[in-house]
């Protein structure tokens, strides 16, 4: 292209957004190749706006890079604060997740060999996510728990964020292991609603008990219910259609309770002095 440049009038019109479409099109094509014309746009941009954007950019490149899970969460739309809290959750660590996956894979593999192991898988399946929730709040594993308790961030919000994160990670792992089970498909998914119901029940109990104890209570109740019934061959009592409706009701009820008491819920401390 020859030394053709945009005249000042054209630049001014373009920068103001007052250029008709074909002028704008030509201008934009030209600006891709011409540094002096690009410079001529600068006076038409508010200095304050340019400064403000620069400060944000400078801060972001100075600050340390977020870890990959955090970046993923932010891209998915979670707020930056939420993403950081999830990333700092003790349960969401490689070793822990591998342990859960390993145990379940073992159970699923064993189920191929022996029908009874299938039942064991169903009984054990909700315990994985539940244990994850408990661990996320167990004092020994969250080193900043004490500091976090003194911070204004809502305990309930932290509870919900972490629980959701733990479930989002552990439930697919369990589901994947379940796919390896022999037999009909519905059985492999029969543990989903019970997990939801048990989790909501545990969350609702955190108003009165610490998260670890609440999960323990709920998990014990589950085992006491399912082990005798499955051993006796009465799978439908814990996993049948009526039971599934019951688990759903429990989930909804627990959630409703939590919503109603949200202003008074504080996560309790369990350790002695």
């Amino acid at each position, binding site marked *: 292209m020859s030394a053709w440049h945009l005249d000042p009038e054209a630049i001014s019109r373009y920068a103001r957004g007052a250029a008709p479409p074909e002028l704008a099109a030509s201008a934009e094509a030209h600006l*891709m190749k011409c540094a002096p014309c690009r410079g001529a746009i600068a006076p038409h941009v508010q200095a304050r706006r340019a400064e403000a954007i620069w400060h944000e950019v400078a801060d972001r490149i100075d600050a340390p890079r977020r870890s990959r899970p955090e970046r993923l969460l932010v891209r998915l739309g979670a707020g930056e604060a939420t993403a950081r809290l999830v990333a700092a959750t003790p349960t969401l660590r490689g070793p822990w997740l591998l342990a859960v996956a390993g145990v379940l894979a073992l159970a699923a593999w064993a189920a191929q060999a022996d029908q009874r192991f299938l039942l064991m898988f169903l009984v054990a399946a909700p315990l994985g996510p539940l244990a994850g929730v408990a661990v996320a709040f167990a004092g020994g594993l969250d080193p900043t728990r004490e500091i976090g308790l003194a911070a204004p961030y809502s305990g309930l919000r932290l509870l919900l964020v972490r629980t959701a994160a733990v479930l989002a990670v552990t439930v697919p792992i369990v589901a994947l292991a379940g796919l390896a089970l022999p037999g009909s498909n519905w059985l492999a998914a029969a543990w989903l609603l019970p997990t939801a119901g048990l989790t909501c029940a545990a969350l609702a109990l955190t108003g009165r008990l610490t998260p670890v104890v609440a999960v323990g209570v709920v998990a014990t109740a589950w085992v006491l219910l399912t082990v005798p019934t499955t051993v006796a061959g009465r799978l439908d009592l814990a996993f049948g259609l009526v039971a599934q409706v019951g688990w759903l009701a429990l989930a909804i009820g627990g959630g409703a309770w939590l919503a109603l008491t949200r202003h008074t819920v504080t996560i309790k401390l369990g350790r002695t002095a």
Partner: protein
Amino acid sequence: MPRQPDPRDDAQLLTAITDGDREAFAELYRRHLPWLLVRLGRRCASPELVDEVVQDTFVAVWRSAGRWDRRGEVAAWIWGIGIRRLVDALRRSRPPAGELLEFAGVETSAEEHVLLAVQYGDVGAALASLSPELRAVVQATVLDGLTTREAARLLGIPPGTVKTRMMRARALLRERLA
């Protein structure tokens, strides 16, 4: 206050940025922020969203400066990053405008149409003679270099519509420039 203009060209600045040269980055910002702001601003009605996208773009430039393929203009590379960020951002939260037709342009009178056609040549005139919907599609795919799907997101229409309009536009332009 008088500042010595940085003598390096854009390609050299990018190389310096890869080594972590903040001054080079600041200079690149000075050179390219204004036009990027205006150009993206013409494709999105929300200034806040544009600010955010521009911010994301320059952070991406800093972090991926080493990945420029050394072909073509640096400005084009920056534009590629910016327009894709805009498309992503619009996918996540559309400003409540309808279909994007007029790229924040202004309707021209008939006389201006003719004058500008004379000044900017045949292609300009042919483009101007297209309806707003067809013109928008041509600008998104040809000028901005977007794929069909990206153009669909930018303009707020289904990808199939983008394709049909492109075909119609091409046919019309071929006719008029023949």
